[in-house]
């Protein structure tokens, strides 16, 4: 079962915007859509590593700030003719608080 960890208030993330969290596996971007839904994705564009958290959020997509690749917030897949995929993570809102999967806080020892 997922163990959740509180990372802050939903209101800290602008509507149609994003904030970054530093995690054990690198930077993760938490997005908030116009409909107040939240998504968490690795903050690295599959094209050339652009910070997706700085892109324009529209519908359930974000446009990468570097070269305009459009990424689905839901699946992490590049849209249209582009190819590529970004890792997605579990995030949810409860009582106005943002919760993510606790495993993001655990350092995974290299095998």
């Amino acid at each position, binding site marked *: 079962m997922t163990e959740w960890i509180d*990372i802050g208030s939903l209101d*800290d993330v602008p509507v149609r915007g994003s904030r970054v969290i530093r995690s054990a596996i690198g930077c993760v971007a938490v997005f908030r859509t116009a409909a107040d839904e939240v998504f968490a994705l690795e903050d690295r564009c599959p094209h050339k*590593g652009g*910070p997706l958290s700085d892109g*324009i959020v529209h519908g359930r997509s974000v446009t990468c*700030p570097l070269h*305009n690749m459009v990424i689905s917030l839901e699946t992490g897949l590049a849209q249209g003719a582009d190819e590529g995929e970004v890792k997605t993570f579990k995030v949810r809102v409860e009582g106005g608080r943002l919760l993510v999967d606790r495993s*993001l*806080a655990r350092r995974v020892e290299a095998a």
Partner: protein
Amino acid sequence: MRRKLVVIGAGMASGRVLEDLIGADRDAYEITLFGAEPRGNYNRIMLSPVLSGEKTYEEIVTHDGDWYANNRVVCRFGEKVETIDRSRKVVVTDNGETPYDKLLIATGSQPFIIPIPGKDLDGVLSYRDLDDVNAMLMAAERPGAKAVVIGGGLLGLEAAAGLKARGMEVTVLHLMPTLMERQLDPAAGYLLQKALEGRDIAVHCKANTHEIVGTDRVEAVRLDDGTEIPADIVVMAVGIRPDKTLAEAAGLAVGRGVHVDDAMVTSDADILAVGECVEHRDMCYGLVAPLYDMAKVAARTLLGEAAAYEGSVTSTKLKVTGIDLFSAGDFADRDGREEIVFRDATRGVYKRLVLEDNRIVGIVMYGDTADGTWFFGQLKDGSDISEMRDTLIFGPAYAGGSPLDPMAAVAALPDEAEICGCNGICKSRIVTAISGGATSLDAVRAETKASSSCGTCTGLVEQLLAVTLGDSYEQQAARPVCGCTDLTHEDVRRLIKARALKSMPAVMQECGWKTSCGCHVCRPALNYYLLSDWPGEYVDDPQSRFVNERNHANIQKDGTFSVVPRMWGGITNPRELRAIADAAERYGVPTVKVTGGQRIDLLGVRKEDLPAIWADLNDAGLVSGHAYAKGLRTVKTCVGTDHCRFGTQDSTGLGIAIEKRMWGAWTPHKVKMAVSGCPRNCAESTCKDVGVICVDSGFEIGVAGAAGMDLKETEPLTKAATEAETLEIICAFVQLYRENAKYLDRPYKWVAKVGLDWVRERVVEDLESRAALVARFDFSQQVFQHDPWAERARAEPARQFRPLADLTMEAAE
């Protein structure tokens, strides 16, 4: 002996349980009904028509004294149940104990009161029961009385409309950017706001209430931004909380509400609960339809029959006469979802269906909701709509009607809407000319002068030809802004002005946008147009700006940023240089470079360090150089008469004066300028957007040069005698460019479209026009000329640049 049923709460949910129960078996129970309100059950949702005067209280009573008597229900109205003693199976009131075999909790919910100073003052009301309505009616009796309604949801707006109908002056304060945001998308929210404002109800969105002011009773409401709105009453309608107090004190399982299973039984087998006070499968409801479903099940459970409630899909309507809206389901965008949007700007209609796997999952409708129930039926049934997808939006009655009309926005323009701004020609004038035989663009131009000057309204004139002449007119294909619309940039700009559209949802609705909230191509353009046309009224939307303008720095390929402080006219001094050097060291800036624009670039700054480095630079008097902006970049200068043996004028001084007047102004694309002290042109003035060459007799002003992807020499605009005149002409030129150019057209591209003569007439020859342009420029500078760095170096906005959380610290614990 009949078993004893005690019911707590004489509201809509328990009322329906009693009807179902008694209807099925009149003798099953001996029923005692407690109600805290001093009256029996009435149709609570009809309080709004009572408030507005469209109904009387008597008309909304659902169960009167006769009904209770005939059905042998013992009524204990005005008597509140204080506790439930589960071990002895009794409920306790001030009048003593009442035993039960079965207990039904139906306590509804409590209005939520925001915990702000003044919330307990006299005149602060909630909107829940008849007493609240009576208190509002009393306040409305005084002529000129003012009401402030906090909360722009269903309840708040019904209260507002009702109070207005009773003659009060009404203001609605809503925290979110659009009204009823949980039921409506921004497009529908915009139409709703427009309709309310049309009834003279003031609506403030994004309004955060700070405190309610008053000594004994309410006098005013103060917002976070200091605004004070006078009020005789304040109605708080910001939400409801399930009333679970009794159940919780009795030790029943509760969450947000009283926990029940599918049979509506709580964690105690002899206690049932229904209505707004329950939580069922993680859901709490605030509408009656689900409560009725629950009631049916509760009645059968009480009769010992097996029945299960499985949750409800709800739909919302607003009960304000003359305002039609409908919403249901989940209408958020999502992968694999498609939307069908229909907008009719003439009639103020907006309909949006959200589809997933060929099924309707969300509905938002405004203006024409006749088909709402039919769509809702399709949604609940999960019907496959692929067969009728093309005509679905027209509803069940569709019988070969016309397809979506790309010209609807133009057809919808009122007769007096100005189409050609240059010549002041309105729609009716053009339509009359077309009807009178001017059936080509040239003929319209000859007859009316419309589109004969700068030509940016050509698209609209052509659309009018097409609308008026129908199929017989063949329009040239123009490039629309993006896939969200069929209109060109020029058309949209013109419509924004002609119809005074002042918000993004307004533009999208009135121009018939095909998507509900735009995309990364149209949103930055619309944000610019609105900002430029309505300075002081439109509020900038950072989320519709590209990364650099949102972060006030240029993003680098590795996600770091560059920082370029302004150096007025390329002049600096040891103090500034020292501050730049210190900042470079303190923040470990990897590259310090002199730019092609006569200033210094600090490259490779981490995003979270931006506010701090800005604060340090601010301390030395350095402000943002807007090296990231569609706005004024640099004014390059040469040394001029200050030092140079050939200098004819103070080119450095003029360059600095221009930069000080111009900085901070948003423009369709970036704007670069230069001032050279003599025709040797050391500041490269002849390839700038605006370039000045000083000569003995004054200043030669050239415009529309380019040295980027295209290379082009400036064209001479005019010659001015004094510095002051030069400045005025440049301001007027930039303002004309701001007001008319297409987003992302540099001045040279725009001038090529409208012609230099057209520009010269307005900026140089017509002095009245020049003065007006300068006045508008200066007004907008009052709004926009402030250092964005200084604003964001402060604690609160600065937080946005830092990570929300650092979980790597968590791991170390």
